[in-house]
């Protein structure tokens, strides 16, 4: 494979010097400070929602490159350490920067999605990911209109349902009981919270039905939720 395009890893949002650093990390991992690269990537994902959605792929590529070149996992270790630090301080992050918090959850789910160990998802991330999703499903989080502008594309509810679409099925396989509990929260939120926006209600209902259908979109659901045709 030739040099990965900027498009593929969405690194255009970085400054030129950092882009160069990342490109080198992908081609010649031994030549850069991989721990620094990990920090750069995490820092950026906490700020750039677009990047946080796809950063997992780039991380995977760096890990593969390092493993192939030196049989090491310095980058992965740095990445996971940093991820863990942020996780442990997540309440503070959420208080300080709701947008950063949403980015973090997006990022950690993306990492969980992409980074596999011998074709198995990373066990160590299962409970932390659940914890993050649980936090997003708390009543205060669901009702929060102002969390980054409400349940729209930047909001907590949107993040919750999006991540469940992407990694819900895998997560459920790893721990069904916690998924059941999560959906209890979601269902209760949908039914009981009086101050949910109508968009939030719609999003929650959609994910409830999505899971009930075995994590698949049914034609009826597609028609109801995504069709532009009005009755």
């Amino acid at each position: 494979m030739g040099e990965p395009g900027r498009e593929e890893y969405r690194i255009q949002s970085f400054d030129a010097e950092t882009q160069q650093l990342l490109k080198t990390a992908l081609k010649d991992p031994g030549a850069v400070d991989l721990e620094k690269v990990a920090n750069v990537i995490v820092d950026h994902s906490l700020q750039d929602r677009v990047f946080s959605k796809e950063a997992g792929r780039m991380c995977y590529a760096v890990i593969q490159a390092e493993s192939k070149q030196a049989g090491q996992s310095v980058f992965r270790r740095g990445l996971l350490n940093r991820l863990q630090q942020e996780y442990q301080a997540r309440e503070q992050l959420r208080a300080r920067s709701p947008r950063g918090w949403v980015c973090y959850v997006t990022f950690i789910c993306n990492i969980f999605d992409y980074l596999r160990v011998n074709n198995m998802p990373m066990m160590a991330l299962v409970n932390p990911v659940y914890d993050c999703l649980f936090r997003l499903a708390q009543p205060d989080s669901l009702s929060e209109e102002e969390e980054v502008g409400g349940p729209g594309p930047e909001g907590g509810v949107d993040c919750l349902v999006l991540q469940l679409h992407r990694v819900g099925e895998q997560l459920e396989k790893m721990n069904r009981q916690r998924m059941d509990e999560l959906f209890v929260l979601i269902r209760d939120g949908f039914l009981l919270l009086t101050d949910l926006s109508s968009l939030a209600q719609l999003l929650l209902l959609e994910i409830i039905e999505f899971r009930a259908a075995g994590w698949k979109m049914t034609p009826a659901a597609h028609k109801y939720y995504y069709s532009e045709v009005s009755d």
Partner: protein
Amino acid sequence: MACSPRTPPSYRSRGDRDASPPPPARWSLGRKRRADGRQRAEDAEGPAKPADCRRPDSFTTPEAPKPRPRCADWASAVEEDEMRTRMNKEIARYKRKLLVNDCGRERKSLLGSCGSKAPCAAPADLETDESVLMRRQKQINYGKNTMAYDRYIREVPRHLRQPGIHPKTPNKFKKYSRRSWDQQIKLWKVALHFWDPPTEEGCDVQEIHPVDLGEMETESAESSSESQASSQDHSFDMYEGTPTKVRHLDCHVEDEFDLEACLTEPLKDFAAMS
């Protein structure tokens, strides 16, 4: 609830949850007491100090086949998992190989890797304890992660190896006592030194394979304090034990490989290892 045991709120069974307000996130904020029993301030510095409040559980799911050792740090947990899955594949492969050898033996009496005339070791006779296998694998990795090993396998293809002359990696799946295994590893690594790259003064660092510093630091820290290494050597010690030993054996490399000298001289370094 005077009679209830002093368990922190987060340890209530999950069934309790629906009525009461959602408890704090399980892992860091819900614990009322530290692992040693002292009370913590609510939602305090817990998240910032992972070393203090070690979580009692591992990060694996309840559905995991058996209890896993505590691993508070994600990176290590992932690395262990990786080693474990790799190990399982190797065990499977080795068992298949034994079965194949077994069939071969019935037709022609080969001695194979078991070296005995009795039927080859049934899977019941293999070492299967994960922790033992992982430890042994780590020791093997240290030996294989050397310039010497690289040069050795390039120089001597496996089918041209002569037993007794060419070192063979100890078989981690066989049952051995701890002492026996450790001694096999020592002898194997000593034997590998024959293929150490020739060194000159000021050997450049780039030739050395970086090893996992996290593991090697404890070992090389001990060996470097014992060896009379110059300050230049210390930089090598950070990466690998081998270059230090290369220095000791320098005088021997030119002559024949002197096993006696190898066994006596650097023995103090070995004592510091594993």
